[in-house]
């Protein structure tokens, strides 16, 4: 992609409901053609952000820019932004055709032109032949397609999707994820997508903005977010991770030496580190290996195997370190050589799998 161009930006967005602070100052640049996901637990402010972009809510402070133009106070009907609502909000008294044609007919587009474009849209979402059906006569997945077609027909600059797959069962969800992603790439429309499902965010997005309590915790590519989480919250919200208490023994140029339960473990440094400070090391359960024999890598710990059970392709085990901390591991079951429960085991990993994260667990109810 050559020279990404900023399409939509949020500047210092704040929103207070009564006394409840929903957004605590958001800044974000969304690039043209991008699929960006706002990910976070319920109540983190992602829907509020979306509603402010759509114009359905006014921010208490801050601005929204579309193509450099301030649209913060522009009425929702005047924005080149459309929304796919959480429960689709299809008009129950209109059939599929009228639902999709709604936006165009408001613009006074001619009858034939509407018919042609609705036909195109129906084809795009594979619902040709369903024109006369009422929303109540459609399945969840079909409703979802109508909702998308109804918005896409207006060729919005940005399409906002508020948990569009939330009401669907798992299989349909998976299929729709691919379909949506394909559609987005085919049309080149910028998507701002909301979900609380980390897997959905990881598979679909170009970038993910992880949110918590009205703030962006981390804005990164799916890979960056998974491999290089910056805080304990980011590490534990996405994937299964172990957060291990550590102490920085020495900070060097090429890294830092940690003290974990008496083991000296090297790790890449972070610019915010200060020596002697208690730290958290994030270790993904999938990136940990178990061994009965001592291992030569310095990135290893030892403890007692407390629990172990078969979980299909991988085995979930619990290892208690000598200082009482417990590690979860998920190692491949391929050709495994199983240590006994209660025996001494070694846990090891590639150095880049251990990431130091900022401890923001205390802030959760701040």
């Amino acid at each position, binding site marked *: 992609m050559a020279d990404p161009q900023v399409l939509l930006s949020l500047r210092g967005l704040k929103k207070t409901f009564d006394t409840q602070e929903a957004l605590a100052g958001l800044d974000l640049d969304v690039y043209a053609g991008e699929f960006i996901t706002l990910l976070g637990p319920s109540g983190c402010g992602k829907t509020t952000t979306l509603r402010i972009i759509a114009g359905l809510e006014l921010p208490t402070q801050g601005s929204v820019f579309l193509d450099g133009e301030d649209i913060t106070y522009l009425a929702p009907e005047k924005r080149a932004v459309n929304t796919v*609502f959480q429960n689709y*909000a299809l008009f129950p008294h209109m059939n599929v055709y009228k639902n999709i044609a709604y936006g165009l007919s408001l*613009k006074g587009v001619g009858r034939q032109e509407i018919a042609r474009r609705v036909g195109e849209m129906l084809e795009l979402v594979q619902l040709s032949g369903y024109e006369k059906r009422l929303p*109540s006569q459609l399945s969840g997945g079909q409703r979802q397609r109508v909702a998308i077609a109804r918005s896409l027909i207006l060729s919005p600059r940005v399409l906002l999707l508020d948990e569009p797959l939330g009401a669907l069962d798992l299989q349909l969800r998976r299929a729709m994820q691919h379909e949506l992603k394909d559609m987005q790439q085919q049309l080149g429309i910028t998507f701002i997508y909301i979900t609380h499902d980390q897997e959905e965010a990881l598979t679909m997005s170009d970038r993910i903005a992880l949110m918590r309590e009205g703030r962006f915790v981390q804005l990164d590519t799916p890979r960056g977010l998974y491999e290089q989480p910056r805080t304990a919250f980011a590490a534990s919200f996405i994937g299964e991770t172990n957060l291990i208490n550590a102490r920085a023994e020495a900070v060097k140029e090429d890294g830092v030496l940690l003290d974990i339960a008496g083991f000296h473990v090297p790790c890449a440094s972070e610019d915010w580190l200060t020596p002697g400070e208690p730290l958290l090391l994030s270790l993904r359960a999938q990136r940990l290996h178990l061994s009965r024999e001592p291992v030569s890598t310095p990135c290893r710990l030892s403890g007692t195997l407390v629990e172990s059970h078969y979980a299909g392709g991988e085995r979930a085990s619990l290892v208690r370190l000598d200082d009482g901390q417990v590690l979860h591991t998920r190692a491949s079951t391929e050709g495994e050589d199983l240590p006994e429960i209660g025996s001494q085991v070694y846990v090891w990993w590639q150095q880049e799998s251990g990431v130091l994260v900022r401890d923001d667990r205390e802030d959760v109810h701040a």
Partner: protein
Amino acid sequence: MRKKNPAWANVYMALLLLLLYLPVLVVVLFSFNSNPGRTANFLFEGFSLQWYESLFDPATGYGEPLRTSLMLALWSVLLSAALGTLGAIGLTRRPLRRRLLARAGSAALSFGEQVAVLPIMVPELVLGIALMALFTLMGLPFGMVTLVLSHVVFCVPYIFITVKGRLANLDPALEEAARDLGASPMQALYTITLPLALPAVVSGCLLAFAMSMDDFVISFFVNGPTTNTLPLKIYSSVKVGVPPHVNALCTLMLAVVFLVVAISQLYSARVNRRRQVQASGGARI
């Protein structure tokens, strides 16, 4: 799943319905009575249509009150539909207010809403006397105007509550979706909210129409010397004796009511089955 009713339950329902219809059936039966007696007309002597034939004779005097009642009901329902529907639109999902002055205004609106639905609960007798006193104070001549003004008073709450119940049950996202797709607030109201509220408006209007046609007590107090509604006419006829014309008239009214209710019930049952749109909260008639 709910269990089936036991047989005795059906017998009970049938008996109660029979009791409910007994007086009505008697009226229907006696409307075909050939006994010409005017006062002691309690013996059924034979089949005759004489009371129907002479019902709309100017001499019998039922035509004019019928016309008055229909006009009255029509005007009352039209005015009430406008006031009640607008009221419901205005008072559903009001924004939360934080500033003191705005909060006071909000409280005033809530109080006003309570006053507006009061006629459902205030005994008709009290309302009738109060309106009569007020019209006297205002110097309004008693007649069609005072009748319509009074009927609107007790029709509005039925339409208001029915429509408000429907609007409150609508997903707020529907209007937002309309705005999002380019509709102005007005267009969203016309194209989405009003069509969805229409069934409730209609059922509220039917209810109000029946209430207006049926009202005796309030009309009794605010009626003028030259206006006479059907219930008032029936009351004065029945009070003196048992005039056989009333039987014929009542049978005709019953037939009309039965037809209207049957059509609307069957229609709404079919619409419900086909669309499975949630019925508005509480409003079902």
